[in-house]
């Protein structure tokens, strides 16, 4: 690289050799993240499509399954995630202003919120495991059939609801775990003062990713927890 014949005007150490200037580099990275998020929308889209069809066909079972989810834990988790999005947004601002300490604290808070979400999710899954609501050979929904004698519940259709519940929240949780890992690395670099008001693109991009994961949950919460909560006649 040292014998590159191309004269590089700016000498910001974060500038990679193939970009003309920092502005081009920032714009390319940012577009790259937006395009990646578009692919993520399509990735989740397949499952949302399956959800749409089966909810239309098997409404009773979806409503009963939705009632069996813990609405309080779901609501708390929604609030936790929104708080984590706030800390990320503030973190991007802190990076822009060059406030290193504040940035590190905000990133750490984001990680804490993310882990709290995953912990609560784990508790919910464990409850489902105890209730035999995990799809597979030990799947059993006699409790739901007994609880809601007013509606007709087909166990195999009920299993589809829980299949989608675990597939969708599982895929979402996987994205959360990846996000927490990314923020752990960024916190380390932020602590090492790698980010400056001129160069903090990674913080912005990780923030975009985190907001995206947050939005997925904003859709998952009503679709899975709030299908039908009216008192049954």
């Amino acid at each position: 690289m040292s014998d590159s014949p191309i004269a590089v005007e700016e000498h910001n150490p974060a500038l990679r050799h193939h970009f003309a200037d920092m502005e081009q580099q920032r714009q390319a990275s940012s577009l790259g993240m937006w395009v990646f998020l578009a692919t993520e929308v399509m990735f989740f889209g397949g499952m949302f499509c399956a959800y749409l069809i089966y909810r239309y066909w098997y409404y009773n079972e979806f409503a009963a399954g939705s009632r069996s989810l813990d609405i309080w834990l779901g609501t708390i988790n929604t609030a936790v995630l929104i708080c984590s999005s706030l800390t990320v947004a503030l973190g991007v601002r802190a990076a822009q202003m060059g406030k290193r300490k504040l940035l590190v604290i905000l990133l750490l808070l984001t990680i804490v919120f993310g882990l709290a979400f995953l912990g609560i999710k784990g508790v919910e899954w464990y409850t489902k495991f105890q209730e035999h609501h995990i799809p597979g050979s030990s799947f059993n929904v006699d409790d739901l059939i007994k609880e809601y004698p007013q509606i007709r519940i087909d166990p195999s259709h009920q299993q589809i609801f829980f299949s989608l519940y675990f597939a969708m929240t599982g895929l979402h949780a996987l994205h959360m775990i990846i996000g927490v890992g990314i923020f752990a690395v960024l916190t380390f670099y932020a602590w090492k003062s790698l980010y400056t008001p001129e160069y903090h693109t990674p913080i912005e991009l990780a923030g975009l990713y985190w907001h995206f994961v947050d939005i997925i949950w904003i859709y998952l919460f009503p679709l899975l927890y709030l299908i039908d909560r009216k008192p049954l006649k």
Partner: protein
Amino acid sequence: MATAAITADRTNYLNQEYGIKSWLLTTDHKRIALLYLLSITFFFFIGGFFALLIRLELLTPAGDLVQSDTYNKLFTMHGQVMVFFFLIPSIPAVLGNFLVPLMIGARDLAFPRINLLSWYLYIIAGVMMLHCILTGGVDTGWTFYTPFSTAFSNTKVIEAGLAIFVAGFSSILTGLNFVVTIHRMRAPGMTWSRLPLFIWAHYATSIIQLLGTPVLAVTLVLVVLERALHLGIFDPTRGGDPLLFQHLFWFYSHPAVYIMILPSMGVVSEIVPCFCRKRIFGYKFVAMSSIGIAVFGFLVWAHHMFVAGISLYSALIFSILSYMVAVPSAIKVFNWTATMYKGSISFATPMLYAFGFIGLFTMGGLTGLFLAALGIDVHVTDTYFVIAHFHYIMVGGAVMGYLGGMHFWWPKISGRMYPEFWGKLAAMIVFIGFNLTFFPQFVLGYLGMPRRYWQYPPEFQVLNVLSTAGSTILAVGYILPMVYFLWSMRYGKIAEENPWGASGLEWMTSSPPPTFNFDHTPEVTWEAYNYENIPAPEEVAVER
């Protein structure tokens, strides 16, 4: 520079550094293109080996070489290897990787390390696929149709599914890199209307890769989860719907055909103006037809399911939409033909492949219209007519374009000329071998021979023998270029900067290019394909 003892050459991307590490850890888009070239060639011959075994079995009506179980695995792995490990990465990952930055005057792709990552993902997927093949293989057909794949098949579906899942991410990352590079890395003056049509084709391809591949990925995840953890989303015995799988699968896998053919069309759009010494006819129409194919391509997937039990009304709509893809495709064919009109055509090897592409793609496209017609589709679904149709598109179209492009840009890639006589001979052999292999299959299909059977009634034997004979000729045609390309790397004539007298920024730097592509970032002040201002080279015989 001290290494250039024999020739007084300047350093280029090939001789700047030596050693295995300088290749495996490279972030140079040109070197990654060569890594891809080696790996996809390897998988091409694996897939081709399965194809030859299939044709050998079909030489006689009885099942004598292999039995039905093995035959099912052969056509499955032929399809999976060829589609996911050769055709989809072929032109984008090799020629696209090499040429996209060069053509737009950039020093590299926007994300060089992600580019290397995509190659490593491809290799991981390839190793998984190879392991799957060597330890038993898969028998679901390349389409993984449920519930057979999730509940009945006792072969390695999970491993093959995960391999293709990983290969999909390699493809997504390539597409992401291209889109960002084309948007953000163009040289000063390289406006959208001055982009080479190869770039437009790759832009359209990348959009399909980005929006289609994730859907296939999540579908395969669901298949794997259903097989491993009994989720039951596609299993009819548990209230699931196998048709949903087909919808999700074809939502990617039909546009995937355009991932294969669009880059080939981009290659032909470069070759035809060069060897006709004319600006391409209707630049904007050719560019926009690429985008049109990408958009329409997403709206036709259910024509694979006309006999699978979808409603008549949606079948009608998908039939009409499928016809509409013919419009942008025909625009391209007519505009290439119009470019040739009154051009000074020279019949060099790349041009022979371009001619082959135009003819065979037209055949494949027109028979596609037969299949889009609901009545005819019912008659020929799952027969050899369908096999012949999509091989005319994928092999007659995509592979012809790939080989044409490899010959056209070989001087730029290697710095050497290939032997023109052998090139022309191989092009002829491929064309003849291809038609002999696949034309009889149109007839076979129309007469009612179903696909995916290892034996057939004796009255079909003559046509099957013709097809098998053609496939051996085709194999010779594919092996020849590999031999003389390797030969030319040592003994070929040294290539000049612009041996064809072609337009385009990639011809304005040395052959092979230096690591950073250009000594100075070029400034573009001219329109694409300004052949009236470029003199024809003397070596390429100009015949009127």
